């Protein structure tokens, strides 16, 4: 094999903390060859992003390389003076940043931002650069590139913006392209189209690609080789099929098992629906329109004639991309907002007055998406879980205290957490507290609004397992809302697919995923990452099975 394009050896990166330094990357070594895609995989805090930024010399404030070497072809990059770095970045190393929503200058035109990279490196005239920028926009698949060049970033969709950023990164055909979670912020269908484009273009230029992702499924689809990082070190690396098919390190195995997209292959039969006779929740032809702020008279139809019902003890998954109206449905079900037309029945009874709403509030509870925002930072954990009990005057003070401890144990936290505050807890622990609070009043229905989307994949697996156990133990009914189809597939026994406020398909989970009827559902399912890679079914997993 020819010499590698990128050669990282014993890289050590430190962050200057308050008074003491923290090593975020500890002795990392790997190569990337021309035409090869290497995925750097890990959870948040694993050092994958820091490694990538060290390679382009763009460590955030306080970070510096304290050891090791980074060589591009034969040139050492560590310790390069600023002037020399400027000639490397953009020309020889391209960077596709994480969040296309904020990675373009909001007050500069698209064309100028693309042309800037040409102007910096090529000494082209302004007019020629503008012309080339339009060609670049055309090459990344934007329609009407002349018009796009004159627009500003906010006038483009997220997918289009990421195409622009890919165009900028590849404009000068760099020998190395670093993609830092390039599509994590995008909807799943957009994500797969953008990644297809990225694959095409890098294959054409023959660039070496360093692909940073937390998503094993994306890595499985896109990478030739996978490097798994944990706590600043590499725990395993090798060919994608080998690492993901027969992982040798326990951490890789646990990551794989926790990844819903890949784990789901194992689940063949859907859970036998433990359905009660009558539906607990009925949503009947509900519609809701919002007025757009700042646009006199213009409205948006957030929810359009949606009907579904959830049997007692069932788990109904509501999936859709951003803006599909799924969160509005959650708010309608919880009576946080009233529908323009249609009704919501709980146990067959409509909610008509304030007393009915109070009853419904008691019997249906919500778990919010973001556990960092849903807990009052000034309260202790005990006070947070106690709040619903106190508000509904359940029991005496000491009874309530016992109940709080009991609830903490049910979510596997234990009484020791009672006196802590949210700021002292991790994301997963906070979400457990939020679940305990939701369970305090013994509700029938739990509305889960993206309960794991703010969490790392292994934490997500724990929370999903907890939710599953709670449902079985306590005969709960779930309305589970998510953009992540793989997660929904794990949790739900029936699924509804939302698109632009309309429910385009409803059915048993396996049917919807395996034999989608609606074209939109088919596109959505087809875009789930982890499908392209033909990996052997995990053989290691049964050994790890928990008896819990």
């Amino acid at each position, binding site marked *: 094999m020819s010499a590698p394009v990128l050669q990282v050896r014993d890289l050590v990166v430190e962050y200057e903390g308050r008074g003491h330094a923290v090593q975020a990357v500890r002795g990392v070594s790997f190569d990337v060859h021309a035409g090869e895609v290497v995925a750097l995989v890990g959870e948040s805090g694993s050092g994958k992003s820091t490694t990538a930024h060290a390679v382009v010399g763009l460590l955030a404030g306080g970070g510096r390389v304290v050891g090791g070497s980074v060589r591009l072809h034969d040139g050492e990059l560590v310790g390069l003076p600023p002037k020399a770095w400027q000639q490397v970045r953009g020309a020889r190393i391209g960077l596709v940043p994480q969040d296309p929503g904020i990675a373009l200058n909001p007050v500069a035109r698209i064309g100028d931002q693309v042309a800037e990279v040409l102007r910096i490196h090529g000494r082209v005239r302004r007019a020629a650069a503008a012309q080339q920028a339009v060609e670049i926009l055309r090459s990344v698949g934007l329609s009407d590139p002349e018009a796009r060049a004159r627009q500003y970033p906010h006038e483009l969709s997220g997918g289009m913006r990421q195409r622009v950023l890919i165009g900028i990164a590849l404009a000068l055909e760099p020998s190395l392209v670093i993609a830092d979670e390039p599509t994590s912020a995008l909807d799943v269908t957009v994500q797969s189209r953008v990644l297809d484009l990225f694959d095409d273009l890098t294959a054409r230029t023959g660039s070496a690609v360093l692909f940073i992702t937390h998503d094993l499924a994306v890595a499985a689809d896109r990478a030739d080789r996978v490097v798994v990082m944990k706590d600043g070190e590499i725990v395993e690396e090798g060919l994608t099929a080998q690492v993901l098919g027969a992982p040798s390190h326990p951490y890789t195995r646990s990551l794989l098992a926790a990844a819903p997209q890949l784990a789901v292959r194992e689940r063949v039969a859907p859970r036998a629906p433990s359905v009660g006779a009558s539906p607990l929740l009925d949503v009947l032809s509900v519609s809701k329109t919002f007025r757009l702020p700042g646009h006199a008279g213009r409205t948006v139809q957030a929810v359009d004639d949606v009907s579904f019902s959830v049997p007692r003890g069932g788990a109904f998954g509501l999936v859709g991309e951003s803006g599909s109206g799924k969160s509005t449905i959650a708010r309608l079900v919880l009576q946080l907002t009233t529908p323009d037309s249609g009704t919501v029945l709980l146990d067959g009874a409509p909610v008509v007055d304030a007393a009915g709403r109070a009853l419904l509030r008691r019997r249906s509870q919500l778990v*919010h998406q973001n556990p960092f925002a849903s807990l009052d930072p000034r309260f202790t954990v005990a006070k947070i879980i106690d709040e619903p009990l106190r508000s509904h005057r359940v029991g005496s003070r000491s009874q309530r205290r016992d109940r709080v401890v009991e609830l903490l144990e049910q979510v596997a936290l234990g009484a020791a957490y009672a006196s802590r505050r949210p700021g*002292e807890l991790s994301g997963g622990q906070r979400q457990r507290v939020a679940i305990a609070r939701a369970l305090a009043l013994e509700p029938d229905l739990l509305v889960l609004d993206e309960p794991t989307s703010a969490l790392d994949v292994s934490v997500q697996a724990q929370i*999903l397992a907890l939710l599953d156990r709670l449902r*079985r133990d306590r005969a709960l009914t779930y309305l589970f809302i998510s953009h992540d189809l793989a997660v929904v597939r794990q949790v739900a026994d029936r699924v509804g697919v939302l698109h632009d406020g309309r429910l385009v398909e409803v059915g048993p989970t396996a049917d919807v995923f395996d034999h989608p009827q609606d074209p939109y559902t088919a596109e959505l399912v087809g875009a789930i990452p982890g499908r392209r890679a033909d990996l052997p079914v995990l053989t290691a*997993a049964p050994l790890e099975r928990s008896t819990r």
Partner: protein
Amino acid sequence: MTLVSQAPAAVAAPSVVLARPVPGRRRRHPLATPGVLASFAVVLVILGWALVPGLFTAADPLVGVPADKLSAPSAEHWFGTDNLGRDLYARTVHGTGLSLQAALLALGLGLAVGALVGLVAGYLGGAVDAVLMRTTDVLLAIPGLLLSLAVVTALGFGTLKVAIAVGVAEVATFARVMRSEVLRVRTTTYVEAAVLAGARRSAVLARHVLPNAAAPILVLATVQLGVIVLAVSSLSFLGFGAVPPTPEWGSLVAEGRNYLSVAWWFTTLPGLVIAALVLAANRLGRLLEGRTHR
């Protein structure tokens, strides 16, 4: 087959990932920097001047020794003497009480009225909010010192009236910040969670909104204290405050205006005290700000 079975034990145990020792309440002491220590010292000394001036100087602030007039700072007269031979350090120390009282009165007025207006506007919303906020818009449109001057014109001169005038000009600032804090807290997810938990409006207000909105208001009060000290001393400098010979910081500096060319200390040193207090208050305010926004 259940879902739990797919999550290996190593991952399912909640303690493995992200579990680190819980950081206690005690952190590395952030108060130990020289700037913060000096600020505390300045505030303490000036508070001492205000409360027990006699402890800091034995000289009489009102009666001077004409023979010593306009003498430069020395071991005997730390800040020098004025045109009547009075000890300027004693006048500064004895002027502190009145100047600080005025500033605190103005702060209290602005804080109490402003916070109440902001709370009512933010919590009730609707027409009440609209009327109150348009009113504060107007108060903000009139430059603060001009508004204070108008109030002084109507009420007349004196330290108390100056304090009221400055306080009135501060109301709008506090009302704005209080309202936006109330709105911010009201729309947080944890307040929505409390509503869903069945908490009544009054309970939400008392348990969630007020405690979470109070901290930024108190920080603002510390920061505004500096602004208020400057405004009070400006009005006093213009001659709308205490009647001579009663010493007050602003008027002390004004008295030295005619002796600029012969007695640099006359204006410089009392003014330096004002600047030191404002600087210290701002430094401590920023410290508090940093801690609440942690």
